[in-house]
């Protein structure tokens, strides 16, 4: 019961920061988005969080393609059961060519160490592969405490 309460508090804390974060600097990518790539390809990219020994209760990240040619076409759930449901995205941020994702674990069994929390499916321009700039906005444990984590993106296909 106590754990649930803490977890709820963690979620509240997590989503409370979302409004401010979703209006963060878009790094000037908005106007540069190309609607028609010269040679389109579809690729998937794994998004990994390494929390070392801490259990990951919720997370929020921002992904920006500096090449500004990619288009997000799907978000897949992560490898651990706690994050199997695909993360939510901020549609308003997407209008600004930023991908802001967030997810929370619905139960108490949390992943530790390095885990793929999501897979991004993108349409990219084969002649101008994406250059990602990543920002970890939040990673919290089940109690809503910030935890140290490293964020990584890796091409899967």
């Amino acid at each position, binding site marked *: 019961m106590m754990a649930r309460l803490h977890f709820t508090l963690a979620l509240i804390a997590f989503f409370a920061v979302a409004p401010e974060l979703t209006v963060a600097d878009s790094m000037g990518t908005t106007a540069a988005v190309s609607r028609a790539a010269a040679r*389109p390809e*579809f690729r*998937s990219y794994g998004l990994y969080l390494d929390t070392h020994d801490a259990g990951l209760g919720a997370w929020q990240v921002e992904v920006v393609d500096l090449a500004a040619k990619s288009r997000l076409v*799907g978000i*897949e759930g992560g490898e651990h059961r706690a994050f199997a449901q695909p993360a939510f*995205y901020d549609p*308003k941020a997407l209008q600004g060519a930023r991908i802001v994702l967030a997810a929370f674990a619905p139960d108490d069994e949390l992943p530790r160490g390095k885990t793929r929390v999501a897979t991004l499916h993108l*349409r990219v321009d084969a002649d101008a592969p994406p250059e990602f700039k990543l920002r970890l906005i939040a990673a919290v444990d089940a109690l809503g405490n910030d935890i140290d984590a490293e964020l990584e993106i890796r091409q899967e296909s």
Partner: protein
Amino acid sequence: MACSGRTRPLYLLFAALGLWVLSSCDSASRSGSLDGVADKRAPAGAYYRPSSKAHKQLIVRSAIESSAPNLEARSGMRRNDDAELMQRLSPNEEIWIVEDSLFAKRRHETRREHGCYAQLDDGGGQSVAMPIKLTSVRAEIAGFTATVDLKQVYHNPYSQKINLQYLFPLPVDAAVSEFVMTVGERRIRGIVREKKEAEQLYREARDAGLIVALLTQDRPNIFEQKIANIDPGHAIQIDLRYFQTLPYRDGGFEFSFPMVVGPRFNPSGSNDPIHAVSRGTPIGEDDKAVVYLNKGDYSGHRIELSLELNAGVTIEDIKSETHRTQIERRSDRQARITLAASDDVPNRDFVLRYQVAGNQLKTGIVTQSDSRGSYFSLMMVPPRDIQEKSRRPVELVFVIDTSGSMRGLPIEKAKAAIRRALRASTPSDSFRIIRFSESASSLGEEALAATSGNIRRAMTYLDRLEGGGGTHMLAGIRAALDPPVERGRQRIVSFMTDGFIGNEDQIFRAVYANVKDARIFSFGIGSSVNRHLIEGLARLGRGAAAYVSLDGDGGRAVDAFYDRIRHPALENIQINWGGADVVDVYPRRIPDLFVGRPVVLTGRFRGGPPRSIQVEGRREGRRCEQHISLGGRTQVNADLSKIWARRKLADLDYESALGRAGADRDALSLALEYGIVSRLTAFLAVDASRRTFGHPGPTIPVAVPLPEGLQPGSVLNRRR
């Protein structure tokens, strides 16, 4: 699994290649047999399965049917498949050629080129293989808001890769804001994109051999699901979530879930027609068409439905006139309703009504806040003293749809409703009856006094009406609204129609231009009516919509209609929000308040929510006002921000239909920001992690049953 093992039957591939070469040199009627490999069978769904061991297995389904007539087309595709497979082979890989017994019984197959219509026939039986298996609806109702989770399970029962397209209905005010495609165990969230861009991305992904799903809106109540590259035997699940507010009409709240799109008639001038064809009729990939099962066909598509109802106040009665249900009362305020397993054919709207204790229905507000701001929905109940006043004389104009789709029971229901209304009229009223199908005509040239003699004449006129021909509703609208109305009378127009037309925007423009001071009360008659049209007519005509199912007697709807027009409405309503900072309230034009019909408004607020409101309006030309305390607000689970955005989009869509510049730009921006499907946005989900083999398959339209009560010959294949 039957295909496991470490043998290397490459000879099977060569045997198959030999057969395909032979078959390509022969005609389509040449029979092909791979008896030598027929014992290497795989269960449905085996196509490409990485082994857990070091070896990979490529398992190729070969559609081996001794009577298959289209080996010519198949052979070309297979050769390319095999060339690709060979290129991808490495020394530690193996190939199996298998037959799936699922398809052995298929007797013949008709097919057009990629992107066009194709179908498989069962060879004379009643069962027709269709790529949809299940629609599952789970709804949570809290007060007058609903959160609905809709699951659609598709599969590929054929011997080759397919694409599918499926036109299906949703409630007209549904704010669809979640879309998840499940492929095997993997769940991929769809992204809202501008519709044109999403369609382009869909085509690119499809042509790249990826599994991709696209959800678009063709009308506010008609959506299209496309899924590309479904491998033989594989299943794809689509999960949607939408939010809506529930209307209160005729004495109860109403939850409805439409199950099938009725066949639309598209008069000349229709910009974006939706055709209605029977299964087997060729259609182009870009054609919008609802394909209907033929008489006696059964597709196996089932529907499940369950509702969790928490009314918040005491529930007096729960009832569905359209379906058999099981109702479990959990408390005086809560109930669980499930659709009976014996009633699982999706061929008519599901409608559930629940009544709350009359004295508990009060003006109330629900609120919700998120990162975008604070939102509310206000249900405004008409003041009680509205029933104490009587109204000025009316001219009743009954406009009855006598087109082919109304033939039989629907037109009899419409006639019964008009008869009942006429019997309730008073001699001070006047009336007209107008019928329309290919053209419009009326009983007499002018309005008749509602005398007993004229009513008898009307009854005889109604007796002679039958259904047949097209649905040229514009003719009916002009006949109803163009003639001048006698001074001192209020014109009340009642449309009696199933609304099966494809030119809604044309109709709305005509009504807007001609309605003047008339009020429109539209009656949807039938099992699966076009609620977009019915609600739109009432909205533009500042009246109300009602529905008469084929199962009910329609008496309640007609009586409620008469109760409304017997008393003056509160018109030109404005609301003082009592100091609360309320903005962006929709609908912008607040509907008139009639007896027995609350109005739901949705808006945004900053700071605290409104605690009380001052409602001002005019009744019979005199200014009236009422102070209403809203009491405690209620937080709801339903996403009011999405409901608000959907309401605003509806307003913008009307403005667009009526020609307001900039309405489309505003609507696109809003839909993208709130992540909901609209006329200008679509959901797209691509699985970029795995490419399916071979060329794109044919596109299979999902055939659906005709709405209950319709006669196929009168409504299908009427393409203009």
